[in-house]
């Protein structure tokens, strides 16, 4: 038995959010990941973001595939609805869940093996459909749970723990997602809470497919010298394209960003995303430029992070499909079953 519920001791002085909840209320069970695993920092960031946004956990569905990363949803938001599905197929389960109830907030958690190898097809089609989800890839360039094989996001020439060299070029998930029309694409680093939390908040508020590719070093199998997904390597090669502020609806925008470098992006529910471009060349609203920059950065061994692309005009899957305002799982029986009278007409059409 490995499930241990942390006693939620509400310290009277703990900070509370709009719902009157403390960060503790957003925690999950105790992590069984390796001490120091990047994935745990991401769980912490998710907790932080949900706390900040004052989201009620019961309105959140957290879905995942299989892998160390895919275990993470157990380690945050105890009161959210969890679904640890099968390897690489979370996108389809999430798509179905969203069809059933478009009003929940969907957090998808996956790994680089789970998404870029076995799951790449479902990932691409979910992006293409503009599934309304915050799709988090906890990207460590390796298969943690099966003990350190190369994944498809591992960089060419990067070395395994056992000294072997990866001979294949990586699949860059953000580039793929942007190319496929995903509405919101970002990258971050599990070690950079500053950047990650606002990115997560914005993604959760975005209505459409939001990918956040988070480099999340595997301390056990891919954090050595020669690995390009180690803490050290990422810290050295990280290049942030923008600084991001998420401003909820009703709040005043008071960033100190310099005019000219500042971009304001209104989100669907009226909240605002303000960002300061750190590189003048970079425009996160331009698909072509985003892809170009990502490819160039890769060539130069840089890892671009931040909000890489956003298209605030997309419609999400439910909207594209013209699904009724009442979630499908809440339609009353009489709205669904046409009854005997209508059936008589149908019979008449068949004789």
């Amino acid at each position, binding site marked *: *038995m*490995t*499930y241990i519920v942390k006693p939620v001791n509400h310290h009277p002085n703990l900070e509370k959010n709009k719902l009157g909840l403390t960060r503790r209320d957003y925690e999950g069970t105790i992590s069984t990941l390796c001490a120091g695993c990047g994935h745990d920092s991401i769980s912490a960031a998710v907790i932080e973001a949900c706390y900040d946004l004052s989201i*009620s*956990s*019961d*309105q959140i*569905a957290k*879905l995942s595939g299989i892998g160390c990363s895919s275990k993470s*949803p*157990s380690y945050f938001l*105890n*009161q*959210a*609805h*969890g*679904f*640890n*599905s*099968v390897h690489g*197929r979370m*996108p*389809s*389960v*999430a*798509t*179905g*869940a*969203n*069809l*059933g*109830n478009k*009003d*929940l907030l969907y957090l998808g958690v996956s790994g680089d093996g789970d998404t870029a190898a076995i799951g790449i*097809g*479902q990932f691409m*089609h979910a992006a293409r459909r503009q599934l309304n989800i915050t799709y988090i890839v906890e990207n460590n360039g390796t298969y943690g749970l099966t003990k350190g094989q190369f994944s498809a996001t591992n960089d060419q020439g990067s070395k395994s723990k056992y000294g072997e060299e990866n001979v294949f070029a990586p699949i860059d998930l953000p580039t793929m997602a942007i190319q496929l029309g995903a509405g919101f694409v970002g990258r971050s680093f599990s070690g950079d809470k500053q950047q990650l939390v606002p990115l997560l908040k914005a993604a959760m508020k975005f209505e459409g497919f939001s990918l956040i590719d988070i480099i999340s070093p595997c301390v056990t199998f891919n954090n050595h010298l020669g690995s390009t997904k180690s803490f050290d390597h990422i810290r050295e090669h990280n290049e942030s394209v923008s600084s991001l502020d998420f401003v909820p609806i009703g709040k005043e925008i008071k960033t100190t960003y310099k005019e000219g470098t500042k971009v304001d992006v209104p989100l669907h529910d009226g909240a605002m995303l303000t960002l300061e471009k750190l590189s003048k060349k970079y425009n996160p609203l331009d698909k072509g430029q985003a892809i170009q920059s990502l490819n160039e950065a890769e060539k130069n061994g840089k890892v671009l992070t931040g909000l890489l692309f956003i298209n605030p005009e997309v419609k999400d899957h*439910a909207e594209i*499909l*013209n*699904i*009724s*305002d009442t*979630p*499908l*799982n809440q*339609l009353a*029986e009489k*709205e*669904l*079953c*046409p*009854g*005997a009278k*209508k*059936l008589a007409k*149908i*019979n008449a059409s*068949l*004789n």
Partner: protein
Amino acid sequence: MNKISSINEFVIKFANVNGSGSASANQMFAKGIFRSGIPVSPKNIFPSNIQGLPTWFEIRASEKGYLGRKAGIDFMVAMNPQSYTQDVAEINPGGYLLYDSSWKRDFKREDINIIEVPLTTLCVDEFNNPKTRLLFKNLVYIGALSYLMNINKDIFIKLIEEQFKGKEKLIAPNVQALEIGFKYAKKHLVDACKIKVNQANLTDGMILTNGNNAGGLGCVYGGATVCTWYPITPSTSLAESYKKYCDQLRVDENTGKNKFAFVQAEDELASIGMAIGANWNGARAFTATSGPGISLMTEFIGLAYFAEIPVVIFNIQRGGPSTGMPTRTQQSDILSCAYASHGDTKHVILIPSDPKECFEFSADSFDISDRLQTPIFVLSDLDIGMNDWTCPEFEWDDNRKFDRGKVLSKDDLDSMESWGRYLDVDGDGIPFRTLPGTHPEKGAYFTRGSSHDEYARYIEDGEVNARNLSRILKKFEGAYKFLPKPIFKQETNASSNGLIYFGSTEAAMQESLDQLSVSGFPIDAMRIRSFPFGPEVWNFIDQHETIFLVEQNRDAQMKTLIVSEGNVNPEKFISILCFDGSPITANFISESISDVLLNKNTSQPAEEIK
């Protein structure tokens, strides 16, 4: 020359070229007979091809209601020179051959009646456009048949009007083509044919439709709001039927918005994944597929089984294995459904035998799936699914309510001390579930395909896991209570010989039983309609010495299921197997059985008939 003479009992077959528009004309001809009050069973025998290859359309008309396929053709409409040889060979002595005598031909059979209609010439004379001319040719032969067989021409005119509702311009030329054929026959072919249709009223209260149309409609009535699928013959039309009826019945009049979702997935792994996701959220969702799709869904089916998520899967079986014969019928996915997925798994199966049951089982499947919290297969086949059948009208009781099974509401949760997702509270192995978003604080749990305890917590304790697996088995063992019971052809048993069959072989069965009775071999028959089997099935087996088991597969898969699930001695069974992709015939069944029974009195029984 001998001429087959028959009223309201015959088989007519059309040999055409695929993609030449013949199917809809032939369908219309079948409907013409149906509207004359005679039961018909049209069968479209088409290639896995879009245009150019030979295709056939076989119609059996039978006032006795014998609607199984029958070998030997009474009337052949041979429109495809490519298949002349084969087509001519199939005609019964004394039968008829109608062909396009624009190009004369000697068919080298003295024992059949050749009916010549210069279809092309007639069309060339009347229609200019070569493309439509091709289409009208079909109507011309329908017109000729209308005269030859004495089917009221007005029925066809009405059918044309119905078909081209909205495209009224097309009515006149179609009727014209019909008339050309009719007139030609009236002038040149008086008394050419002694097969006639006499108006009757045997189809009152009946409809002519196919199982996929019915199945799609059943999903609408069963409250399915989500259909996620991937195209594959012969299941595609079930999903399309659902969409068609939803477009009619499930669009909000005020907002124009859809009270359903229809998603063509990228493949079958995704379509089942989506259906599972939607059901997890409490929306009734289904997918429809065929053999290859089932194989691809295997991993996900195991997840739904073990995590106990309802989901309805239509498998419209076709000829396997592998890509096999995509446009032919078989019942060969029984084991691959019953035991789908690695590990210890067993799945509930419903087996309809005609469109009426497709409608009913389709609607029922959602109740059963919710009730049992497990995947349900509706196992149909190409013959039921894609061919039209004469069957009773669909029925619906407005007092019927969806059975959502053991789902806890917000109030339920508020009134409960504690709750475990996988606790067996009622002793029936069925736990209670919650739907995401029901309650702000209670009822959240973690769904997973890895081992878990009664509270849905991840565990690696082998005993806890074994306990959970045993409970799931218990649930399965009680499932028969919620499933359609078998149907018996007799009120009480009258023979020591029993016959078990299921699904589409129903069409041939009454005829076969009558034949056997006439031959002095009356036999008791039971049609299985679901798996796992209930006491009625075991009793029937107990009560008979010898059991014939009719299946449309090579490996006697249903026998495996019966023998292994019921600890029944397999020696009792004699399998009658047909797996060439054509629907089984009454004659084949009767002959197989009477051969065995004759032998039984004299020598050793033949063990298996293929």
